[in-house]
């Protein structure tokens, strides 16, 4: 139970919630505002993380160049996926995206020379040498920690991730309040109607998929930096669905609902590991790990029944046809 009061532990939970916030913000823009059903969001996160790690560890590029390049590659992947598939009906598009994210993961697993394969980023370098991609990041993190007089690494990371998350949330919030955002919502409501008013629906959807994918790429960067090592197994489709849970928890079509959903999700997800009292203590810890999935499932079911609009959504919007 000591971990329950440990600041370090909750800082770690907060970092993960911050990364999820950035990841889910992309989905909010895509689905919450534009109505794009993307079930392969994690694929773009993987592309961001891998691009940065490969550019730094293999090509020796500065992290400060590799990071924006990785975000750009994630966005470009969104464009490439969107060009042929965004003309499809929403449900077919959803199938294409989930296939895409699995293709990304399988490529990462099998292209050993490029990605390190199954062994993950540790195998990015020469045989027998453990590759590193986060030396510059660790120095930056230490520098920030010193400047802010924060001793803990996790707390420093918490500050950096949430600073980035808040900037991205604010930018998204500003963008969706413009006439540009109004067109997105019109497309979400009825894309035929939007086209009848002269709106280039495909162009807007492409823009949104590029931006949403770039946000997933940013989440991938922080994921890579936080864990110092990753492998294809880190980018299972489950991660996409965690982001969807956060989106539904927080509420659709509301930018600031994303951090709320992510915080609740992070709290429940991490908090359930303290359920080690009787009768739950009769399960071992590995079995108890599954309890959190049950709890999250119950929370979602309860939400759908009692608060379908999410924590921050407007009920009045849910009943309109």
């Amino acid at each position, binding site marked *: 139970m000591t971990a329950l009061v440990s600041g370090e532990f909750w800082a770690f939970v907060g970092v993960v919630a911050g990364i999820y916030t950035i990841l889910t913000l992309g989905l909010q823009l895509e689905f919450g505002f534009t109505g794009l059903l993307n079930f392969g969001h994690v694929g773009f996160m993987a592309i961001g993380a891998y691009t940065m790690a490969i550019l730094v560890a293999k090509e020796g590029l500065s992290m400060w160049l590799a990071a924006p390049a990785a975000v750009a590659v994630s966005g470009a992947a969104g464009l490439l996926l969107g060009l042929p598939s965004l003309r499809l009906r929403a449900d077919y598009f959803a199938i294409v995206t989930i296939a895409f994210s699995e293709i990304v993961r399988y490529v990462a697993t099998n292209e050993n020379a490029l990605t390190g394969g199954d062994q993950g980023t540790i195998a990015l370098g020469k045989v027998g040498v453990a590759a590193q991609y986060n030396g510059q990041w660790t120095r930056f993190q230490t520098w920030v920690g010193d400047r802010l007089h924060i001793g803990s690494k996790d707390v420093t990371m918490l500050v950096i991730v949430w600073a980035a998350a808040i900037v991205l949330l604010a930018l998204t919030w500003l963008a969706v309040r*413009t*006439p540009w955002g109004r067109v997105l*919502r019109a497309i979400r409501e009825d894309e*035929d109607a939007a086209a*009848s008013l*002269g709106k280039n*629906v495909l162009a807007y959807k492409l823009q949104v998929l590029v931006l949403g994918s770039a946000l997933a790429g940013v989440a991938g960067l922080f994921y890579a930096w936080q864990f110092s090592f990753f492998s294809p197994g880190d980018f299972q489709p489950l991660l996409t669905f965690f982001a969807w849970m956060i989106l539904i928890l927080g509420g659709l*079509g509301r930018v600031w609902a994303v951090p709320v959903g992510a915080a609740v999700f992070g709290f429940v997800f991490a908090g359930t590991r303290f359920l080690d009292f009787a009768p739950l203590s009769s399960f071992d810890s590995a079995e108890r790990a599954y309890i959190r999935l049950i709890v999250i499932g119950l929370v979602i079911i309860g939400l759908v029944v009692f608060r379908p609009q999410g924590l921050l959504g407007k009920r009045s919007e849910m*009943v309109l046809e």
Partner: protein
Amino acid sequence: MSSQLEVREVARAFGGVAAVDGATFDVEAGSITGLIGPNGAGKSTLFNCITGYVRTDSGSVLFDGQRVDRSAPHRIARRGLVRTFQTPRTLTRMTVRENVLVATPGHPGERLGGRGRRAEREADARARELLALVGLDAHADALAGTLSGGQRKLLDLVRALQTRPRLLLLDEPMAGVSPTLRVELLRHILELRARDGITLLIVEHDLDFVMNASDRVVVLNNGRVIAEGTPDEVRGDERVVDAYLGTHHG
């Protein structure tokens, strides 16, 4: 007057069944043209062909002398050939005002990072004016999903007008609109033509309405134009009576 819209031998079949089968007619600039015909005559398909929502199998559609039958719907709309839908396509989770504002043409604020403050003010002024015209101004800030069927029909019309159309295609504007509102709607439509010089092509089941409002009437049956002329000419046309009542009347 010259032809603003030329429909030439347009054909479209669905699974071997011809919905539109070589329809040809013109719409004169500044006119109100009624497009009528019995159920299944192909009116809606023809409408969809003209506005780019359905590809034509053959034939051509010319707007201002330029072919539009291979253009995407949004490109056709941008040229000023704008449609409404049979069932209103209300953007329900947006306000009534937003429904109209989103139709503003060439709004620089609709580009990502574009500056559109002035355009937005102008758009808002026009939206207010149009909403007042059809008596929806009191509902401007309500979610459009709370409007009644008839009000949604009016909102669709107003939204189409916000695009500053030159030729407006109305698909059954009177369907689901109460009789009192119908009179008002007709008045608005006539006002609009007088004020902005908009050309109108109207598909409508309500024959009284079409005969009252139209300068010219085009009658469609089995996907082909069977008669064309002034309301009086069409009314007296044997083929039209046959199409509506069947050939074995009288």
